[in-house]
C-alpha cells in the first residue's frame, strides 16, 4: 500500500472514531440527564470533549513522531506510527466516554484546550523570527568558517566567481581564489537607498504637510488612498518600469548633457524606489502632524506667526520624532527592497559614488547567489546568508529605533492611535 493510501485510511478511521465519540458521548450524557441527575455541562459539551479526547492526543502523537523522524533522523515506519496514534485515539475515546459524569466540568476542559491551541498559534510568530534568525546565522557561520569575517566586512573586492572550484577542492590556483569583500555591495545599497530617500522624503513630507495643514477635507479624503495605491503596486512591476522606461530616459538625458550613463545606472532604481516609498512617509507623517495638539498651533498663531511659520517652527519640530521614525522605516524598507534593484540595477559590484554607473546591491547578490546552479555547500551560496544576516541586523535595529522614537512622541503628546 502506498503511503498516501495509508494516510487516507488513517484520516478516515480517525474521523470515524471522532463521530463515534460525539454520538456516544452525547447519547450517554443525554441518558444521564434523563435519569434526573443535574450535570455541570450540556450534553453537547460532553460530546465535544469526547471528540477532543479522541483526536487531540492522537494527532499530537503522530506530529511528535514525524518531528522525531525529521530531527533525530530516526526511522519509525509510518504504518506503526499511525497505528500507535490510532491506539492512543481509542484510549482517548474510552476516557472521553467514561468522563461523561455529572461532576465533570466538560466545558472548562474544552476551553482550557482551546486556550492552549490559541497560545500555540501565537507562538508561531515567535518561531518564525527564530527560524529566520537560526537559518541565517547557522548558514552564515558556515560561510565565516570558509572566509574570514574581517575580510567580509572590510574587503573591497567581491569576486565569488570561482568558489565552485574551492568547493570541488581545486582552490590551489591563487589567481582564481574567490574573494568576498562586501564593501562595494553595501556602498551600492546605501547609494541607491540615499537616492530613494532624496526623492521620497521631500515629496512625502511636503505631501503630508499639504494634506494635514492646507488641503480641504475632500482633497484629503481623495489624496490619501490615491497615494496608498503607490504602495500597493507590486515591486516587480516597479522593477520593470525602472528598467524599461526610466533607465533609457536617464541615459538619454545624461547623453544630452554630455555624460555617459550605463543602462543599469543606480539612478533609475533609486528614483523608482523613492516613488514607491512616498506613501510610507506621507501616510505616517500625516498621522503624526495631525496628532500635534491644536493648542500649539493656536498659541503660535496668536503670537502673530504666519501659517507657514507656524508649520515650519512649531508643528514640524513637534512632529519630528514621528517623521524621523517614518523615515527610518522607509530606509529599512529601501535597504531590503529586492525586485527593483534585481531588474534595474547591475550585477557587477562597483565601488563608486557616481550614480550614473552600474552598481549592485546586497539583495541583488543574495538573489544571484541562490538562483544559480551551484550546490548549496559552496561558499557563494552560503555568502547569501552572510549578506542576509547583515541585512537582518541593520533593518532590525532601524525598526527598533523607529519604534522607540514613535513611542516617545506618543508619550509626549498622549496620542493613542499611532
Amino acid at each position, binding site marked *: 500500500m502506498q503511503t498516501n493510501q495509508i494516510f487516507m485510511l488513517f484520516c478516515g478511521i480517525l474521523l470515524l472514531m471522532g463521530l463515534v465519540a460525539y454520538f456516544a458521548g452525547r447519547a450517554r450524557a443525554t441518558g444521564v440527564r434523563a435519569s434526573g441527575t443535574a450535570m455541570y455541562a450540556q450534553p453537547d459539551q460532553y460530546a465535544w470533549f469526547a471528540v477532543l479526547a479522541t483526536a487531540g492526543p492522537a494527532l499530537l502523537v503522530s506530529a511528535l513522531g514525524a518531528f522525531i523522524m525529521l530531527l533525530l533522523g530516526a526511522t519509525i515506519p509510518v504504518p506503526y506510527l499511525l497505528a500507535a496514534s490510532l491506539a492512543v485515539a481509542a484510549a482517548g475515546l474510552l476516557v472521553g466516554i467514561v468522563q461523561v459524569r455529572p461532576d465533570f466540568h466538560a466545558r472548562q476542559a474544552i476551553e482550557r484546550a482551546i486556550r492552549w491551541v490559541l497560545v500555540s498559534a501565537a507562538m508561531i510568530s515567535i518561531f518564525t523570527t527564530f527560524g529566520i534568525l537560526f537559518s541565517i546565522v547557522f548558514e552564515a557561520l558556515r560561510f565565516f568558517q570558509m572566509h574570514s569575517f574581517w575580510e567580509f566586512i572590510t574587503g573591497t573586492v567581491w569576486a565569488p566567481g570561482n568558489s565552485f572550484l574551492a568547493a570541488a577542492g581545486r582552490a590551489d590556483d591563487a589567481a582564481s581564489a574567490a574573494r568576498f569583500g562586501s564593501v562595494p555591495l553595501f556602498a551600492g545599497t546605501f547609494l541607491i537607498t540615499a537616492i530613494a530617500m532624496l526623492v521620497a522624503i*521631500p515629496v512625502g513630507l511636503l*505631501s503630508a504637510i499639504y494634506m494635514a495643514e492646507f488641503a480641504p477635507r475632500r482633497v484629503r479624503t481623495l489624496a490619501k488612498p490615491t497615494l496608498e495605491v503607490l504602495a500597493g503596486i507590486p515591486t516587480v512591476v516597479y522593477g520593470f518600469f525602472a528598467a524599461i522606461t526610466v533607465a533609457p530616459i536617464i541615459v538619454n538625458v545624461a547623453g544630452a548633457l554630455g555624460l555617459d550613463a550605463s543602462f543599469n545606472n543606480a539612478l533609475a532604481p533609486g528614483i523608482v524606489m523613492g516613488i514607491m516609498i512616498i506613501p510610507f512617509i506621507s501616510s505616517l507623517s500625516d498621522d503624526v502632524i495631525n496628532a500635534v495638539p491644536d493648542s500649539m498651533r493656536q498659541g503660535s498663531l496668536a503670537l502673530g506667526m504666519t501659517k507657514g511659520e507656524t508649520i515650519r517652527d512649531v508643528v514640524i519640530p513637534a512632529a519630528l520624532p514621528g517623521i524621523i521614525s517614518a523615515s527610518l522605516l522607509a530606509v529599512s524598507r529601501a535597504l*531590503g527592497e529586492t525586485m527593483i534593484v534585481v531588474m534595474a540595477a547591475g550585477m557587477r559590484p562597483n565601488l563608486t559614488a557616481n550614480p550614473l554607473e552600474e552598481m549592485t546591491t546586497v539583495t541583488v547578490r543574495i538573489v544571484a547567489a541562490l538562483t544559480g546552479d551551484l550546490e548549496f555547500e559552496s561558499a557563494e551560496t552560503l555568502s547569501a546568508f552572510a549578506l542576509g544576516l547583515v541585512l537582518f541586523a541593520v533593518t532590525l535595529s532601524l525598526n527598533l529605533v523607529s519604534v522607540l522614537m514613535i513611542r516617545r512622541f506618543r508619550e509626549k503628546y498622549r496620542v493613542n492611535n499611532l
Partner: protein
Amino acid sequence: MSQSFDDISAQLRKRHRKSARLKWFSMGALGLAGLFLVLFFTDMLNKGLPAFQQAQIQVQVDYSEQASQIPLAAVEEEVRDLVSRGFLRTIPLRMKNDPELLGVQRSEWVLADGQVDQYLKGHANKLRDDARERVDRLAAEGRVALKFNTTFFTRGDSKMPELAGIMSAAVGTVMTMLVTLAIAFPIGVMTALYLEEFAPDNRLTQIIEININNLAAIPSILFGLLGLAIFINFFGVPRSTPLVGGMTLALMTLPVIIISTRTALRSVPDSIRHAAFGVGCSRWQVVRDHVLPLAMPGIMTGSIIGLAQAMGETAPLIIVGMVAFIPDVGASFTQAATVLPAQVFTWSGEPDRAFIEKTAGGILVLLTILIFLNATAVILRKKFERRW
C-alpha cells in the same frame, strides 16, 4: 532703530508670501506624486494593451499525408515563414488524434509568427524586407489582421512570444494563495484572538507583540532565506512548488492579518463583552458568539489586503525556486509552478523584444486583479463598518 509702518508692512507681506509659497510647494509635491501615478499607469497601458491583440493569418491549410510528416508542407510557400512555428508543430499530433482531418483542405485563421505581430503593431522586428512586403500585401487583402489574443489567457509559458500565455502562472498563483490563506488566516486570527481576548499582560505577551511588529518590517527576501533553509533543506518540502511558496508567503502575511484582526477586535465595544459575561457566558463563548462575528468584516478586509500583498510578492519566491519555466498548467500542490509576478519577472529577462509587450500585458492582468481585491476590501469595509 525704529522701523516705519511701511517697513513693517513690507516685512509682513514678505512673510505672508513665504507662507503662501510653502502651500504651493506642498501642493506641488502632492501633485508630483499624483503625476508619477498617472505617468506610470499610462506607460503600462501603452506597453501592455497591444499584448491583448495578436496577429493572425488566413491560410489554406492542407492536411495531406505529406503534412503529417513535414508540417511545413501544410501551408502555401508564400506564408510558410509568416505562420507561427508553434501552429505548424501541432499539425501532426492533431492529425493523429483526429483521423478524419486527413485530406481536408480548408481556409483557417492561424497564429502568425511573433515577428509579423510586432511588425503589424509598428514595433521593432527582425522581419526581412521581402517578408514585410508580403505581409503588407496580405494585410491589404484582409488576410492578416490583429485579433483578440486568446492564447495569452489560455496557455502557459513558451519561448515563442506568440504562444506565451499567463494561464499556468495564474493557476500557480491561485494554488499558492490557497496554501497561504489556509495557513495564515487561521493562525493569524487565533493569534490575534489570544493577544486581544485571552492573554494576560505579562512579559511573554509583550515579547510576542514586539515580535509581530518586527516581523511586519523584515525585508521579504529574508523570508525567502527562511523558506530555503528551513522548509526546503530541513523539512524536505519539494522546491519550486505552490506548497513551499505558499508556506513562505504565509509567514510573511501572518503579521498583516494579526495586526488588522487585532484592530477589528479592539473596535468591538466592551459593553458587548460585559453584557455577554453578565448573562453567564464563558470567555470562549463571548468570543465565539459575540466578538468574533462582529469583528468578522474587519478581519476579512485585513485578510484580503494581506492576500493582495502576498500576491504581488516575488523576491521570496525567487529564493524558493518558483521562478521557473512552466509551459503546462500545474495540477498538484507538489508540482513545480510559477506565479504571476514571477512570470512577469521571467518575461522581463527574455531578450526577444516581443516579450516586453507580454511582460506589460502580464502586469496589467496582475494590477487588475490587485485593484479588484483592494476594491473588494474597501467595499466590504464601507458596507459593514459600524460606528459604535
